């Protein structure tokens, strides 16, 4: 069967159509059309929705909502999302960033999905089928998801605390050896009062470094202060092996790069 695209003006109608066998949701095209071009014959019908809210970025105070069809380029250039620009620019090259969407990034298998690593550190919620769920829950179950993601939401402090690092072999556009996002809050004495760390490529999908987060609490961001967190950085991880790097290598350099990010 040839590929065919159906366009719906509402998410509701698109969701209904998505229930047919062989259908996939078409976001920016960087995942689904690639698969189709490469001969993935399981895709026969493409669905998309043009509801305007999917392409909207709304910022009210520190609350941010990004529609699932918003592209990486749109995030990177949005003045209220400046702390995230670096993470958005970590995805692909310029053309890919004009196409790749937030919604698609949530489904991107490792080594892709760098922006989702950032969303994990931000403890985002994923809006889907009229409801919301924590991003961690969404990621754990994403294969069984058959409804359109409509948006992600999170709280973004303009005064900082968010850090992001992508390590790649090829510069400036290379896929990840690993990526790290950290959302840190520090008490007036400099000790860490809250920490969330997202890791990319340390499992088949972005994951939280919870042991490291815990080990940072109450510690200062000095070499000795972060040492326990670095020692625990890879706890619970199962890094991928791919042409870019082996699981062994990713494990070995994760503490090095996490240390550099925390001390930067």
């Amino acid at each position, binding site marked *: 069967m040839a590929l065919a695209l159906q366009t719906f003006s509402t998410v509701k109608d698109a969701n209904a159509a998505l229930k047919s066998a062989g259908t996939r949701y078409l976001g920016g095209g*960087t995942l689904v059309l690639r698969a189709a071009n490469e001969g993935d014959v399981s895709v026969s019908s493409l669905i998309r929705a043009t509801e305007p809210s999917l392409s909207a970025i709304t910022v009210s105070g520190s609350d941010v909502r990004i529609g699932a069809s918003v592209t990486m380029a749109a995030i990177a250039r949005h003045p209220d999302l400046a702390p995230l620009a670096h993470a958005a620019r970590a995805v*692909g090259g310029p053309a890919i960033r004009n196409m790749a969407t937030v919604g698609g990034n949530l489904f991107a298998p490792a080594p892709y999905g760098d922006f989702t690593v950032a969303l994990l550190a931000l403890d985002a919620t994923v809006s889907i089928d009229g409801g919301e769920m924590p991003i961690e829950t969404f990621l754990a179950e994403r294969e069984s998801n058959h409804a359109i993601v409509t948006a992600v939401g999170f709280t973004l402090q303009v005064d900082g605390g968010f850090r992001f690092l992508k390590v790649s072999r090829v510069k400036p*556009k290379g896929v990840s050896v690993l990526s790290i996002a950290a959302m840190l809050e520090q008490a007036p004495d400099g000790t860490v009062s809250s920490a969330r760390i997202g890791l990319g490529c340390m499992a088949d999908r972005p994951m939280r470094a919870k042991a490291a987060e815990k080990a940072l609490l109450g510690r200062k961001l000095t070499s000795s202060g972060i040492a326990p967190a670095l020692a625990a950085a890879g706890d619970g991880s199962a890094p991928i092996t791919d042409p870019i790097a082996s699981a062994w290598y990713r494990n070995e350099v994760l503490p090095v790069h996490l240390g550099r990010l925390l001390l930067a």
Partner: protein
Amino acid sequence: MAKVPVQFTLNGAEKAEFIDSGTTLLHALRDKIGDTSPKGGCHQGTCGACSVIIDGELRLSCLTLAETCNGAAITTTSGLSKGGVLHPLQRAFLDAFATQCGFCTPGMIMAAKVLLDQTPNPSRDEVVEALSGNICRCTGYEPIIQAVLTAARSNSQNAA
């Protein structure tokens, strides 16, 4: 097979075709419309040879469905020279000996054009970033970077 209408401007000229639904813009441009300047180097979004400009943004035509481009203004490298006069980027690529096999060249020029449209006086790092989605296997990139920087300089001189 279901045919769907597509209508857009290509390098300023109106184009209207009936195509198979699910046809990529790359195939529509090359096979239906006859503009073979975008090249199919990977059909994966990893080489940049198919780059075109859609409504001012750099896009990969291999990962874009033609039917999603209705009403758009599309620019390809074949439309850059006007009245037989080369675009400054094209001239700069010639003068810098920035083409060898030439297969990546149309995509490189598209990426460079969007950069210079948005950032007339880019730094070297900005040029490198702008070209980063485009693979070249012949030149080692340096002549291409130099060509883009030269084109930017000649643009700003012309504007002055």
